[in-house]
């Protein structure tokens, strides 16, 4: 698993997506959607969700039947290439037809578009006695001669000649059955693929229900990201497990560069990670963790956070970051990207760091991309970019060890009025070493000019 998928909570989403069959998961992993295809995917997803809501009992049966669907992909390929199937493979096809039929019965009226085909003829071919029981061998009733040979074998069980005759006859019949199956190849293979898709839909639907995800509204031409009450499912889950509350927030940003300021610990990094997560989820046609979500279709998405793994490759944190930014700038001419940068330039000195932020922002602002850049550097005098900030420490904040209780995570337009130098305030609320706080305050008073340059 990719490092960014881990830190943004996408890995968590994947682990919470419960496929019933291995082929369902395979199907999911192999699919990538264009913007138009995504719209169809979301429609299907919504129809399936409504089905689940309306038919809890049918849904239980559906999930139960899915457990019996084995991976018959190799067997269907053998049918396609006219390789004679053996008894275990014929058994698999028979069992598949049975449960495929059960699934069809359940969903055909309401969801014809994902319903497997009618495979009754195939089932009948493999159930010549019409028992309706899911067992298989080359039944006596396939061939009178075979039945006769077997009768003789029962009397003379060690006659090798008779056994040989039986095997020859059986293979003859297997060849015939395989030939007939070939005429049904498309029906079988498509039904298998549809059922795999049903598994994908059910897995996504139950994820959406569990985490209260919603269908996003998106289009190629949208020039706004407008999300209400969004959240990061993994972090929310962890907080709630330890009895804490997660504050959902809204965000609205337009095409171009938006600078994102705010005090420490106000969740700016989480916002970036969650936007990245939402983009990832949309590309795989998941519902998204938000109350309402308008989102453009991005060609690429980039996220740079301070906790990159590149350090492991022996690069300094600064060099690693600059290399990544350079990569992003190479893409800037492309149609539309989502670029999320977390405090770039922070690992070098403030003077040059600020210059780097400004340079990167200026270059990105010329492109068609959406860029959100968090920074601690003073952005008050920068007028050319949109700016947002986190409300931050509540007015009535009291000393506490639970920082999340005293912070209002709401994201608002930065009108330059909010106080962004809240580090000392937070240090005080956290009851840190008095001398440390005093020194910091004194330094700020005395050395203000120094710092500002």
């Amino acid at each position, binding site marked *: 698993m990719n490092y960014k998928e881990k830190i943004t909570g996408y890995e968590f989403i994947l682990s919470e997506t419960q496929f019933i069959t291995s082929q369902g998961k395979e199907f999911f992993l192999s699919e990538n959607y264009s913007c138009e295809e995504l719209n169809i995917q979301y429609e299907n997803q919504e129809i399936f969700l409504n089905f689940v809501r309306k038919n809890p009992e049918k849904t239980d049966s559906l999930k139960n039947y899915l457990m019996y669907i*084995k991976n018959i992909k190799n067997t269907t390929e053998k049918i396609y290439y006219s390789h004679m199937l*053996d008894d*275990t493979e014929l058994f698999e096809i028979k069992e598949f037809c049975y449960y495929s039929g059960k699934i069809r019965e359940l969903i055909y009226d309401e969801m014809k578009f994902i319903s497997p085909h009618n495979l009754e003829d195939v089932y009948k071919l493999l159930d010549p006695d019409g028992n309706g029981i899911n*067992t*298989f*061998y*080359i039944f006596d009733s396939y061939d009178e001669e075979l039945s006769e040979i*077997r009768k003789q074998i*029962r009397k003379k*069980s060690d006659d090798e000649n008779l056994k040989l005759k039986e095997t020859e006859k059986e293979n003859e019949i297997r060849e015939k059955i395989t030939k007939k199956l070939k005429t049904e190849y498309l029906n079988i293979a498509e039904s298998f693929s549809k059922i795999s898709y049903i598994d994908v839909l059910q897995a996504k639907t139950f994820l959406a229900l569990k985490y209260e995800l919603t269908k996003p509204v998106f289009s190629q031409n949208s020039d706004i990201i407008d999300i209400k009450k969004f959240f990061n499912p993994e972090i929310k889950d962890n907080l709630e497990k330890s009895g804490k509350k997660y504050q959902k927030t809204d965000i609205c940003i337009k095409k171009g560069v938006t600078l994102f300021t705010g005090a420490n610990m106000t969740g700016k990094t989480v916002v970036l990670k969650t936007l990245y997560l939402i983009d990832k989820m949309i590309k795989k046609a998941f519902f998204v963790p938000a109350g309402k979500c308008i989102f453009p279709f991005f060609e690429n998405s980039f996220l740079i956070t301070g906790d990159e793994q590149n350090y492991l490759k022996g690069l300094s944190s600064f060099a690693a970051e600059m290399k990544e930014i350079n990569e992003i700038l190479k893409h800037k001419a492309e149609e539309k990207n989502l670029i999320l940068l977390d405090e770039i330039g922070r690992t070098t000195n403030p003077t040059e760091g600020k210059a780097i932020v400004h340079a990167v922002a200026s270059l990105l602002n010329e492109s068609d991309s959406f860029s959100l850049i968090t920074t601690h550097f003073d952005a008050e005098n920068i007028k050319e970019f949109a700016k947002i900030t986190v409300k931050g420490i509540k007015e009535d904040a009291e000393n506490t060890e639970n920082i999340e209780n005293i912070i209002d995570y709401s994201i608002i337009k930065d009108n330059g009025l909010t106080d962004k130098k809240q580090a000392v305030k937070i240090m005080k609320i956290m009851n840190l070493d008095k001398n440390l706080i005093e020194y910091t305050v004194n330094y700020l008073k005395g050395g203000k000019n120094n710092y500002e340059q």
Partner: protein
Amino acid sequence: MNLAGELKKYSSISIVGSEKNTGKTVTLNYLIKILHDSKINIGVTSIGIDGESTDQVTKTKKPEIILGEGDFFATSEKHYKSKKITSEIFDISDENTSIGRVVTAKAKNSGKVIISGPQNNLWIKKTIDKMKKYGADTVLVDGAISRLSHASPAVTEAVVFSTGAAFSLSESEILKDTIHRINLSRLDKEYDFNDEENGVYIKTDEGIIKTKIKSLLMYEDIDRYIEGKKDVKIYTTGAVTDSFLKHMTEKKYAENLTVVADDFTKFFISPQIFNLFLKSKGKLRVLKSSKIIAVTVNPVSPSGYTINTEGIISKINNIFGIPVFDVMKEVSSYEL
């Protein structure tokens, strides 16, 4: 009470041998036959020891079993394909062995099948349950006692022990070993531990802890956990060995000690050490009890010697009151 009557009390029975070539296959075929003749619906499977590679190392050939019409069996795909009987497939497992999935089927006529089954307890249980669901009254499991195996024959309700001239040509040696095995299979059940993940656990008056020791082979590391403690219970998910029990006795820990294993097949100990440990007031217990309910003796050794089995049969029968029979004679002495 005849043997079939005794066997049919249990819905699953494994056949365990004291040594290779003690006639386990002969026993299995014999049991199949008498159950079949008594009109009892049977199922047959085997505990797999990690597939073919092990078979090649230990040079044991998987036995060919003779089934009758209507009998159920579960074997791996590879062996299913090489079967010499006509049979109807009822199920194919989701799990894989190194030689394919396990196919459960019903014999449509009599003939030979090679049986190689699931490789862990849960899977064996599932396979037994499936055959019962399809109609088998008693499922026979070709068991193996092996430290390498993840599965234990004690997963079944009862055990038939098979011994004979392949184990020893001496009547008294066979007797000693068989009595020892039956005694082990009758150890009391222990309730203080559950089926835990692999490791060594110790219970003292301070509660149960999982030790950092991986197996009782590192028995000297155990001392510091139990030194000076009273009423100690040691549970291992692995094997209990002679050297461990000897060490515990020599260190005078035995008097306060209960040693617990998953089941009796996990005790790889000699009768001498077993008796020494019990004499020192140590206790041995099992989490899962599965008793030896019958013994079979094969009088013929692999090199062709034949021993007299009458003494063995009557002595074991006298001590334990369970059916004991010579697999080369058609009728069990118990029935006579």
